[in-house]
Protein backbone atom coordinates (compact mmCIF):
# COMPACT_ATOMS: atom_id res chain seq x y z
CA UNK A 1 0.00 0.00 0.00
CA UNK A 2 1.47 3.29 -1.14
CA UNK A 3 0.80 6.65 0.51
CA UNK A 4 2.23 9.91 -0.81
CA UNK A 5 2.28 13.17 1.10
CA UNK A 6 3.50 16.45 -0.35
CA UNK A 7 3.89 19.54 1.77
CA UNK A 8 5.80 22.81 1.83
CA UNK A 9 7.65 23.43 5.07
CA UNK A 10 8.72 26.88 6.30
CA UNK A 11 12.50 26.32 6.35
CA UNK A 12 15.51 26.28 4.08
CA UNK A 13 16.38 23.16 2.13
CA UNK A 14 19.54 22.72 4.28
CA UNK A 15 17.64 22.94 7.56
CA UNK A 16 14.97 20.54 6.30
CA UNK A 17 17.54 18.05 5.06
CA UNK A 18 19.42 18.26 8.35
CA UNK A 19 16.24 17.46 10.26
CA UNK A 20 15.24 14.60 7.98
CA UNK A 21 18.66 12.98 8.46
CA UNK A 22 18.66 13.51 12.23
CA UNK A 23 16.69 10.31 12.76
CA UNK A 24 15.92 10.56 16.49
CA UNK A 25 14.61 14.13 16.10
CA UNK A 26 12.75 13.49 12.87
CA UNK A 27 11.24 10.29 14.24
CA UNK A 28 9.97 12.17 17.29
CA UNK A 29 7.49 13.79 14.86
CA UNK A 30 5.76 10.43 14.25
CA UNK A 31 2.70 10.29 16.50
CA UNK A 32 3.03 7.60 19.18
CA UNK A 33 6.77 6.99 18.79
CA UNK A 34 9.18 6.74 21.70
CA UNK A 35 12.60 5.47 22.72
CA UNK A 36 14.50 6.09 19.47
CA UNK A 37 18.02 4.84 20.13
CA UNK A 38 21.02 4.27 17.80
CA UNK A 39 21.73 0.64 16.97
CA UNK A 40 24.87 0.66 14.83
CA UNK A 41 25.69 2.60 11.68
CA UNK A 42 22.55 4.07 10.06
CA UNK A 43 20.25 1.96 12.22
CA UNK A 44 17.92 2.87 15.06
CA UNK A 45 15.57 1.06 17.38
CA UNK A 46 12.20 2.49 18.30
CA UNK A 47 8.79 1.63 19.67
CA UNK A 48 5.47 2.95 18.44
CA UNK A 49 2.10 2.74 20.10
CA UNK A 50 -0.87 3.03 17.79
CA UNK A 51 -4.56 2.27 17.74
CA UNK A 52 -6.43 0.89 14.79
CA UNK A 53 -10.11 0.47 15.52
CA UNK A 54 -10.55 -1.63 18.64
CA UNK A 55 -6.95 -2.82 18.49
CA UNK A 56 -4.22 -1.20 20.56
CA UNK A 57 -0.71 -2.02 19.39
CA UNK A 58 2.79 -1.56 20.65
CA UNK A 59 5.13 -1.99 17.68
CA UNK A 60 8.84 -2.33 18.26
CA UNK A 61 11.42 -2.48 15.53
CA UNK A 62 14.11 -0.72 13.59
CA UNK A 63 14.59 2.23 11.26
CA UNK A 64 17.42 1.72 8.76
CA UNK A 65 18.84 4.36 6.46
CA UNK A 66 19.17 2.55 3.12
CA UNK A 67 20.68 5.43 1.16
CA UNK A 68 21.15 9.16 1.36
CA UNK A 69 22.09 11.66 -1.33
CA UNK A 70 22.51 15.15 0.12
CA UNK A 71 23.01 16.66 -3.33
CA UNK A 72 19.80 15.24 -4.75
CA UNK A 73 18.09 15.80 -1.39
CA UNK A 74 16.76 12.27 -1.33
CA UNK A 75 16.98 9.54 1.31
CA UNK A 76 15.50 6.08 1.57
CA UNK A 77 14.56 4.31 4.80
CA UNK A 78 13.33 0.90 5.80
CA UNK A 79 11.06 0.65 8.82
CA UNK A 80 10.34 -2.82 10.18
CA UNK A 81 8.29 -3.33 13.33
CA UNK A 82 6.32 -6.08 15.05
CA UNK A 83 3.79 -6.38 17.80
CA UNK A 84 4.29 -9.62 19.64
CA UNK A 85 1.02 -9.53 21.58
CA UNK A 86 -1.27 -8.86 18.65
CA UNK A 87 0.85 -10.97 16.31
CA UNK A 88 1.36 -8.66 13.38
CA UNK A 89 3.74 -6.15 11.95
CA UNK A 90 4.57 -3.55 9.35
CA UNK A 91 7.32 -3.23 6.79
CA UNK A 92 7.62 0.20 5.21
CA UNK A 93 9.89 1.44 2.47
CA UNK A 94 9.96 5.19 2.77
CA UNK A 95 11.49 7.82 0.51
CA UNK A 96 11.84 11.43 1.57
CA UNK A 97 12.81 14.12 -0.89
CA UNK A 98 13.49 17.81 -0.22
CA UNK A 99 13.42 20.47 -2.95
CA UNK A 100 14.06 24.18 -2.45
CA UNK A 101 11.05 26.37 -3.30
CA UNK A 102 12.59 29.62 -1.99
CA UNK A 103 15.31 30.45 0.56
CA UNK A 104 12.93 29.66 3.45
CA UNK A 105 10.50 27.29 1.84
CA UNK A 106 11.13 23.67 1.01
CA UNK A 107 8.96 21.09 -0.61
CA UNK A 108 8.94 17.86 1.38
CA UNK A 109 7.83 14.76 -0.44
CA UNK A 110 7.19 11.56 1.52
CA UNK A 111 6.36 8.30 -0.22
CA UNK A 112 5.70 5.30 2.01
CA UNK A 113 5.05 1.84 0.67
CA UNK A 114 3.84 -0.41 3.46
CA UNK A 115 3.14 -4.12 3.78
CA UNK A 116 1.02 -5.24 6.72
CA UNK A 117 1.82 -8.64 8.14
CA UNK A 118 -0.06 -11.14 10.29
CA UNK A 119 -3.09 -10.01 12.23
CA UNK A 120 -2.69 -6.41 11.08
CA UNK A 121 -3.15 -7.59 7.52
CA UNK A 122 -6.52 -9.05 8.49
CA UNK A 123 -8.09 -5.75 9.47
CA UNK A 124 -10.02 -4.05 6.71
CA UNK A 125 -7.75 -2.42 4.12
CA UNK A 126 -9.78 0.81 3.96
CA UNK A 127 -9.37 1.52 7.65
CA UNK A 128 -5.66 0.63 7.62
CA UNK A 129 -5.10 2.86 4.60
CA UNK A 130 -6.87 5.72 6.34
CA UNK A 131 -4.84 5.21 9.51
CA UNK A 132 -1.54 5.05 7.60
CA UNK A 133 -2.36 8.23 5.70
CA UNK A 134 -3.40 10.06 8.89
CA UNK A 135 -0.16 9.01 10.60
CA UNK A 136 1.99 10.23 7.71
CA UNK A 137 0.07 13.50 7.46
CA UNK A 138 0.55 14.05 11.17
CA UNK A 139 4.27 13.26 10.77
CA UNK A 140 4.62 15.76 7.95
CA UNK A 141 2.73 18.44 9.93
CA UNK A 142 4.87 17.88 13.00
CA UNK A 143 8.09 18.14 10.97
CA UNK A 144 6.81 21.41 9.56
CA UNK A 145 5.95 22.72 13.04
CA UNK A 146 9.36 21.75 14.39
CA UNK A 147 11.12 23.53 11.52
CA UNK A 148 8.93 26.62 11.96
CA UNK A 149 9.73 26.78 15.66
CA UNK A 150 13.45 26.57 14.90
CA UNK A 151 13.26 29.28 12.25
CA UNK A 152 11.89 31.75 14.82
Amino acid at each position, binding site marked *: MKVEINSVVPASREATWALVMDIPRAASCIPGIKDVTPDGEGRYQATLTA*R*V*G*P*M*GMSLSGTITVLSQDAEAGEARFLVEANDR*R*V*GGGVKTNMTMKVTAKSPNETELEIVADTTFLG*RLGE*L*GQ*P*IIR*RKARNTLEEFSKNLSKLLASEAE
Partner: protein
Amino acid sequence: MIDFEYHAPTNLDEVFGLLDQYGDDARVMAGGTALVIQMKQRLSQPSHVVGLRRVGGLNSIEKTPEGVRIGALCTQRQVENSPLIGEEFPLLADTFRKVATPRIRNMATIGGGLVNGDPNQDPPPSLIALGASAVMTSKKGDRVVALEDLFIDYYETDVQPGEVLTSVLVPRAPSGSGSVYLKFLPRTADDYGTVSVAAVVSREQNGDCKDIRIVLGSVGVTPIRAKQAEDALRGKPLTDENIRAAAALVKDAVDPLEDFRGSAEYKTDMAEVFARRAVEQAMAAIPAGS
Protein backbone atom coordinates in the same frame (compact mmCIF):
# COMPACT_ATOMS: atom_id res chain seq x y z
CA MET B 1 -8.76 -15.86 23.57
CA ILE B 2 -5.82 -14.76 25.70
CA ASP B 3 -6.53 -15.46 29.37
CA PHE B 4 -7.30 -12.65 31.77
CA GLU B 5 -8.70 -12.01 35.21
CA TYR B 6 -12.42 -11.21 35.52
CA HIS B 7 -13.56 -8.77 38.16
CA ALA B 8 -17.19 -8.47 39.26
CA PRO B 9 -17.44 -5.24 41.28
CA THR B 10 -20.81 -4.47 42.88
CA ASN B 11 -20.61 -0.68 42.96
CA LEU B 12 -19.01 2.14 41.02
CA ASP B 13 -16.38 2.90 43.66
CA GLU B 14 -15.01 -0.62 43.23
CA VAL B 15 -15.07 -0.13 39.46
CA PHE B 16 -13.06 3.10 39.74
CA GLY B 17 -10.59 1.38 42.09
CA LEU B 18 -10.02 -1.42 39.57
CA LEU B 19 -9.62 1.03 36.68
CA ASP B 20 -7.12 2.99 38.75
CA GLN B 21 -5.17 -0.13 39.61
CA TYR B 22 -5.04 -1.73 36.16
CA GLY B 23 -5.22 1.28 33.82
CA ASP B 24 -4.65 0.36 30.18
CA ASP B 25 -4.58 -3.36 30.99
CA ALA B 26 -8.26 -3.30 31.92
CA ARG B 27 -11.36 -3.18 29.75
CA VAL B 28 -14.84 -2.49 31.08
CA MET B 29 -17.48 -4.99 29.95
CA ALA B 30 -21.25 -4.48 30.00
CA GLY B 31 -23.22 -6.95 27.84
CA GLY B 32 -20.01 -8.17 26.22
CA THR B 33 -21.46 -8.77 22.75
CA ALA B 34 -18.79 -6.62 21.10
CA LEU B 35 -15.89 -7.05 23.52
CA VAL B 36 -16.04 -10.86 23.72
CA ILE B 37 -15.91 -11.13 19.92
CA GLN B 38 -12.99 -8.68 19.80
CA MET B 39 -11.23 -10.75 22.45
CA LYS B 40 -11.95 -14.02 20.62
CA GLN B 41 -10.45 -12.50 17.49
CA ARG B 42 -7.55 -11.14 19.57
CA LEU B 43 -8.24 -7.61 18.46
CA SER B 44 -8.51 -6.68 22.10
CA GLN B 45 -6.33 -8.39 24.71
CA PRO B 46 -6.97 -6.99 28.16
CA SER B 47 -5.31 -8.62 31.17
CA HIS B 48 -8.26 -7.56 33.32
CA VAL B 49 -11.94 -7.43 32.44
CA VAL B 50 -14.14 -5.37 34.74
CA GLY B 51 -17.69 -6.69 34.37
CA LEU B 52 -20.46 -4.23 35.23
CA ARG B 53 -23.29 -6.80 35.49
CA ARG B 54 -23.41 -6.72 39.28
CA VAL B 55 -23.15 -2.96 39.63
CA GLY B 56 -26.56 -1.83 40.85
CA GLY B 57 -28.59 1.22 39.90
CA LEU B 58 -27.62 1.44 36.24
CA ASN B 59 -30.50 -0.37 34.57
CA SER B 60 -33.58 1.75 34.97
CA ILE B 61 -35.42 4.08 32.60
CA GLU B 62 -36.75 7.16 34.35
CA LYS B 63 -38.74 10.17 33.32
CA THR B 64 -37.01 13.52 33.96
CA PRO B 65 -38.37 17.08 33.55
CA GLU B 66 -36.53 17.36 30.21
CA GLY B 67 -37.15 13.89 28.87
CA VAL B 68 -35.76 10.56 29.96
CA ARG B 69 -32.70 9.12 31.67
CA ILE B 70 -31.69 5.65 30.50
CA GLY B 71 -29.30 3.69 32.70
CA ALA B 72 -26.20 2.56 30.81
CA LEU B 73 -26.78 -1.10 31.65
CA CYS B 74 -30.32 -1.18 30.22
CA THR B 75 -30.32 -3.84 27.55
CA GLN B 76 -31.22 -2.72 24.07
CA ARG B 77 -34.33 -4.88 24.30
CA GLN B 78 -35.31 -3.15 27.53
CA VAL B 79 -35.20 0.21 25.72
CA GLU B 80 -37.11 -1.21 22.75
CA ASN B 81 -39.89 -2.62 24.97
CA SER B 82 -40.12 0.17 27.57
CA PRO B 83 -43.67 1.61 27.68
CA LEU B 84 -42.24 5.04 28.54
CA ILE B 85 -39.90 5.00 25.53
CA GLY B 86 -42.66 3.65 23.29
CA GLU B 87 -44.98 6.46 24.27
CA GLU B 88 -42.63 9.44 24.35
CA PHE B 89 -39.74 8.39 22.09
CA PRO B 90 -41.21 6.20 19.34
CA LEU B 91 -38.07 6.96 17.27
CA LEU B 92 -35.90 5.21 19.87
CA ALA B 93 -38.20 2.20 20.22
CA ASP B 94 -38.13 1.77 16.44
CA THR B 95 -34.37 2.28 16.22
CA PHE B 96 -33.53 -0.25 18.93
CA ARG B 97 -35.93 -2.75 17.33
CA LYS B 98 -33.72 -2.59 14.24
CA VAL B 99 -30.53 -3.62 16.09
CA ALA B 100 -29.24 -7.10 15.13
CA THR B 101 -31.50 -9.86 16.55
CA PRO B 102 -33.66 -10.24 19.70
CA ARG B 103 -30.95 -12.40 21.28
CA ILE B 104 -28.24 -9.77 20.81
CA ARG B 105 -30.62 -7.08 22.08
CA ASN B 106 -31.18 -9.19 25.22
CA MET B 107 -27.47 -9.05 25.93
CA ALA B 108 -26.13 -5.78 24.52
CA THR B 109 -26.61 -2.62 26.58
CA ILE B 110 -27.20 0.96 25.48
CA GLY B 111 -24.04 2.19 27.23
CA GLY B 112 -21.84 -0.64 26.01
CA GLY B 113 -22.91 -0.03 22.43
CA LEU B 114 -22.08 3.68 22.65
CA VAL B 115 -18.59 3.33 24.12
CA ASN B 116 -17.73 0.59 21.63
CA GLY B 117 -17.67 3.39 19.04
CA ASP B 118 -18.56 1.25 16.05
CA PRO B 119 -19.82 3.69 13.39
CA ASN B 120 -22.20 1.10 11.93
CA GLN B 121 -24.47 0.88 14.94
CA ASP B 122 -28.12 1.97 14.87
CA PRO B 123 -28.72 3.87 18.13
CA PRO B 124 -26.13 6.69 17.74
CA PRO B 125 -27.74 8.47 14.74
CA SER B 126 -31.19 8.52 16.39
CA LEU B 127 -29.83 9.53 19.80
CA ILE B 128 -27.74 12.33 18.26
CA ALA B 129 -30.72 13.50 16.19
CA LEU B 130 -32.70 13.80 19.44
CA GLY B 131 -29.87 15.79 21.05
CA ALA B 132 -29.01 13.12 23.63
CA SER B 133 -25.97 13.22 25.89
CA ALA B 134 -24.01 10.72 27.94
CA VAL B 135 -23.15 11.00 31.61
CA MET B 136 -19.55 9.93 32.23
CA THR B 137 -18.86 9.12 35.84
CA SER B 138 -15.45 8.91 37.47
CA LYS B 139 -14.01 9.35 40.96
CA LYS B 140 -14.10 13.07 40.28
CA GLY B 141 -17.83 13.09 39.64
CA ASP B 142 -20.04 13.38 36.58
CA ARG B 143 -19.20 14.86 33.18
CA VAL B 144 -21.93 15.30 30.59
CA VAL B 145 -20.90 14.85 26.96
CA ALA B 146 -23.19 15.52 24.01
CA LEU B 147 -23.35 12.24 22.08
CA GLU B 148 -22.50 14.24 19.00
CA ASP B 149 -19.06 14.85 20.56
CA LEU B 150 -18.57 11.36 22.00
CA PHE B 151 -17.38 9.73 18.80
CA ILE B 152 -13.83 10.68 17.81
CA ASP B 153 -12.61 8.08 15.35
CA TYR B 154 -13.18 4.49 14.28
CA TYR B 155 -13.92 2.67 17.59
CA GLU B 156 -12.49 5.67 19.47
CA THR B 157 -14.60 7.69 21.87
CA ASP B 158 -14.14 10.54 24.30
CA VAL B 159 -14.25 8.20 27.31
CA GLN B 160 -11.35 9.30 29.53
CA PRO B 161 -9.22 6.96 31.66
CA GLY B 162 -11.11 6.09 34.84
CA GLU B 163 -14.49 7.05 33.39
CA VAL B 164 -17.57 4.87 32.96
CA LEU B 165 -20.61 5.83 30.90
CA THR B 166 -23.39 5.56 33.49
CA SER B 167 -26.50 6.96 31.80
CA VAL B 168 -27.89 8.50 28.64
CA LEU B 169 -30.04 11.63 28.82
CA VAL B 170 -32.54 12.12 26.01
CA PRO B 171 -34.46 15.40 25.82
CA ARG B 172 -38.04 15.31 24.60
CA ALA B 173 -38.37 16.52 21.00
CA PRO B 174 -40.34 19.77 20.68
CA SER B 175 -44.08 19.15 20.23
CA GLY B 176 -45.05 18.99 16.60
CA SER B 177 -41.87 17.14 15.63
CA GLY B 178 -41.74 14.23 13.27
CA SER B 179 -38.94 11.70 13.27
CA VAL B 180 -37.77 8.60 11.49
CA TYR B 181 -34.84 6.17 11.40
CA LEU B 182 -34.15 4.54 8.05
CA LYS B 183 -31.76 1.62 7.73
CA PHE B 184 -30.81 0.51 4.24
CA LEU B 185 -30.48 -3.28 4.43
CA PRO B 186 -29.88 -4.83 1.02
CA ARG B 187 -28.41 -8.03 2.53
CA THR B 188 -30.06 -9.54 5.61
CA ALA B 189 -32.40 -8.09 8.22
CA ASP B 190 -29.91 -8.59 11.08
CA ASP B 191 -27.00 -6.87 9.33
CA TYR B 192 -25.52 -3.46 9.96
CA GLY B 193 -26.97 -0.85 7.64
CA THR B 194 -25.20 -0.13 4.39
CA VAL B 195 -26.32 3.42 5.14
CA SER B 196 -28.58 4.60 7.93
CA VAL B 197 -30.21 7.99 8.56
CA ALA B 198 -32.09 9.49 11.48
CA ALA B 199 -34.06 12.70 10.95
CA VAL B 200 -36.05 14.85 13.39
CA VAL B 201 -38.03 17.73 11.86
CA SER B 202 -40.33 20.38 13.29
CA ARG B 203 -42.43 22.96 11.41
CA GLU B 204 -43.45 26.59 11.95
CA GLN B 205 -47.12 27.64 11.79
CA ASN B 206 -46.63 28.63 8.15
CA GLY B 207 -45.19 25.25 7.29
CA ASP B 208 -41.54 26.32 7.07
CA CYS B 209 -38.88 24.18 8.66
CA LYS B 210 -38.44 25.31 12.27
CA ASP B 211 -35.65 22.95 13.19
CA ILE B 212 -34.11 19.84 11.75
CA ARG B 213 -31.44 17.30 12.55
CA ILE B 214 -30.09 14.77 10.09
CA VAL B 215 -27.58 12.20 11.35
CA LEU B 216 -26.07 9.35 9.34
CA GLY B 217 -24.55 6.03 10.35
CA SER B 218 -22.26 3.60 8.46
CA VAL B 219 -20.87 6.33 6.19
CA GLY B 220 -17.67 7.32 7.96
CA VAL B 221 -15.45 6.49 10.93
CA THR B 222 -18.06 8.01 13.29
CA PRO B 223 -21.77 8.83 13.08
CA ILE B 224 -22.04 12.01 11.00
CA ARG B 225 -24.35 14.97 11.48
CA ALA B 226 -25.16 16.59 8.13
CA LYS B 227 -25.05 20.19 9.36
CA GLN B 228 -24.90 21.83 5.95
CA ALA B 229 -28.00 19.98 4.84
CA GLU B 230 -29.74 21.00 8.08
CA ASP B 231 -28.75 24.67 7.55
CA ALA B 232 -30.07 24.53 4.02
CA LEU B 233 -33.54 23.65 5.30
CA ARG B 234 -33.83 25.43 8.65
CA GLY B 235 -36.17 28.42 8.25
CA LYS B 236 -37.00 27.48 4.65
CA PRO B 237 -40.16 26.06 3.10
CA LEU B 238 -40.07 22.25 3.10
CA THR B 239 -40.62 21.93 -0.64
CA ASP B 240 -39.52 18.96 -2.72
CA GLU B 241 -36.98 21.17 -4.40
CA ASN B 242 -35.44 22.42 -1.14
CA ILE B 243 -35.33 18.91 0.32
CA ARG B 244 -33.59 17.56 -2.79
CA ALA B 245 -31.05 20.36 -2.73
CA ALA B 246 -30.36 19.80 0.98
CA ALA B 247 -30.01 16.03 0.57
CA ALA B 248 -27.43 16.60 -2.17
CA LEU B 249 -25.25 18.39 0.41
CA VAL B 250 -25.11 15.19 2.47
CA LYS B 251 -22.70 13.75 -0.07
CA ASP B 252 -20.03 16.22 1.01
CA ALA B 253 -20.55 15.43 4.69
CA VAL B 254 -19.98 11.69 4.44
CA ASP B 255 -16.72 9.80 3.96
CA PRO B 256 -17.60 6.09 3.86
CA LEU B 257 -15.22 3.17 4.19
CA GLU B 258 -15.43 0.65 1.41
CA ASP B 259 -16.41 -2.83 2.57
CA PHE B 260 -18.46 -5.86 1.50
CA ARG B 261 -21.62 -3.77 1.85
CA GLY B 262 -20.54 -1.50 -0.96
CA SER B 263 -17.93 0.86 -2.35
CA ALA B 264 -17.40 4.27 -0.83
CA GLU B 265 -18.95 5.80 -3.95
CA TYR B 266 -22.08 3.66 -3.74
CA LYS B 267 -22.57 4.43 -0.05
CA THR B 268 -22.14 8.14 -0.77
CA ASP B 269 -24.88 7.99 -3.41
CA MET B 270 -27.15 6.01 -1.07
CA ALA B 271 -26.52 8.52 1.73
CA GLU B 272 -28.10 11.24 -0.42
CA VAL B 273 -31.06 9.04 -1.38
CA PHE B 274 -31.77 7.90 2.17
CA ALA B 275 -31.28 11.38 3.65
CA ARG B 276 -33.94 12.71 1.27
CA ARG B 277 -36.34 9.89 2.12
CA ALA B 278 -35.68 10.36 5.84
CA VAL B 279 -36.56 14.07 5.69
CA GLU B 280 -39.70 13.33 3.66
CA GLN B 281 -40.80 10.58 6.04
CA ALA B 282 -39.99 12.60 9.17
CA MET B 283 -42.18 15.40 7.76
CA ALA B 284 -44.98 12.94 7.08
CA ALA B 285 -44.68 11.77 10.70
CA ILE B 286 -45.41 15.23 12.13
CA PRO B 287 -48.70 14.84 14.04
CA ALA B 288 -51.69 16.37 12.24
CA GLY B 289 -52.72 19.79 13.50
CA SER B 290 -49.22 20.82 14.58
